[in-house]
């Protein structure tokens, strides 16, 4: 039985070593990633063997080269980019912790993929457990169809903001209304008001500044 499992050395390792670093960046999910992995297998195997003897430079190169490959594996199971990155880091930490279990006589790819799969599955399970205890709020949980009716605070905030805008000096008020509320471009607003673009910018800037001051003061009072 032992001889059977020893013979699983990948035949593709023979073509390794042509151009290692270039293609790793463009790893895509699917067979390309696997092809790259088997093409780099011999390189990675040698780098890992050197890392096991304490060669930091070889280790850094190995980790930097396997990271994009691991990312391509993780992307197949996780959609959230931060999950993907966390999985990659989990795998790197595990590789570091059990680097002494790698036997340089055997191919590197299966060793790495087994660890990566383990970490991906672990994260999926943890997410499954978390999700089973959480409920996402969606539209059905709202009482009324109109969004304003659901949150009186929002209506109140709007009212306060509206009053604040009303109390601005006329030039600033106009600038805010045209540029921010009606979302005109600077050019359109300049045509509509006859003011220059520069003075519109100045007016908007001052208006925002005084609005901020007014709203801060109000929130401190309440």
């Amino acid at each position, binding site marked *: *039985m*032992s001889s059977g*499992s020893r013979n699983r050395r990948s035949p593709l390792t023979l073509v390794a070593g042509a151009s290692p670093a270039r293609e790793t960046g463009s790893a895509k999910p699917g067979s390309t990633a696997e092809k790259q992995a088997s093409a780099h297998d011999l390189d990675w195997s040698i780098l890992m063997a050197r*890392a*096991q*003897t*304490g*060669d*930091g*430079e070889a*280790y*850094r190169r190995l*980790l*930097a080269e396997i*990271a994009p490959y691991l990312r391509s594996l993780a992307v197949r199971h996780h959609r959230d980019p931060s999950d993907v*990155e966390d999985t*990659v*880091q*989990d795998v*790197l*930490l*595990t590789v*570091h*912790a*059990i*680097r*002494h*279990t*790698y*036997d*340089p006589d*055997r*191919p590197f790819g*299966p*060793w790495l993929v*087994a*660890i990566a799969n*383990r*970490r991906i599955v672990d994260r999926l399970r943890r997410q499954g457990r978390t999700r089973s205890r959480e409920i996402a709020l969606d539209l059905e949980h709202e009482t009324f169809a109109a969004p304003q009716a659901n949150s009186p605070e929002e209506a109140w905030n709007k009212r306060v903001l509206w009053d604040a805008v009303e109390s601005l000096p006329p030039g600033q008020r106009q600038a805010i209304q045209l540029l921010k509320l009606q979302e005109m471009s600077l050019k359109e607003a300049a045509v509509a008001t006859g003011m220059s673009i520069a003075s519109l910018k100045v007016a908007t800037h001052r208006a925002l500044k005084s609005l901020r001051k007014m709203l801060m003061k109000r929130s401190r009072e309440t």
Partner: protein
Amino acid sequence: MITTPELIDSLAANVTPVRRLRPPLLRAAFWLALAALVLVLLAISHGVRPDLAQRLQQPVFAVGLVASLLTGVLAAVAAFVISLPDRSRRWLFLPAPALVAWVSTIGYGCLSDWVSIAPDGVRLGEAARCFATLVLTSLPLSLALLVMLRHAAPLRPTAVTLTGSLAVAAITATALSLFHDLDATVMVLIWNLGAAALIVALGGMLGPRMLSQVALRAFPHDREA
């Protein structure tokens, strides 16, 4: 949060030389040598059961003894092999045939002489010494296995602890049938299978946690495991 390039830099900066694991078969052989040592020590201190030669003439007893020993050996090999990430999970089934043979001999004994159970067939003293053998065999072997297989914690903790516990349980059961003349079938069943089930269950429940505890102490930088 630390970014991946930062993590790579810090891992590469802290890389220390490691000693590669020896081949799994060799490591299993080391552990089995320890098991043999424990059995020999027990035999010297305790003496084998008085009717061993006589019992070995009985095919059911002999087959059961060989099968339980074989289960122990094969389960130990399987545990060491599957503790490595790149080996097939199918090694889990390696001890299965021996396990079936062992369990079926116990079952056969149970069917054939269940009438001979005497109400006072087992004295408390014997049962207590039996328990001592159980602890003396299984404890050192479990601890050794735990330390030798700690690297499996982030990989396949459950499968490895189950096979490892099976190995310990089978060796313990072998020790029990070598050293104690518990002839009442129910007792054999309870001691053999009960002890085996207990060790396997304890291993399955505590093993993953214990493995990661041991692993944590051994590799302090890896807080993820």
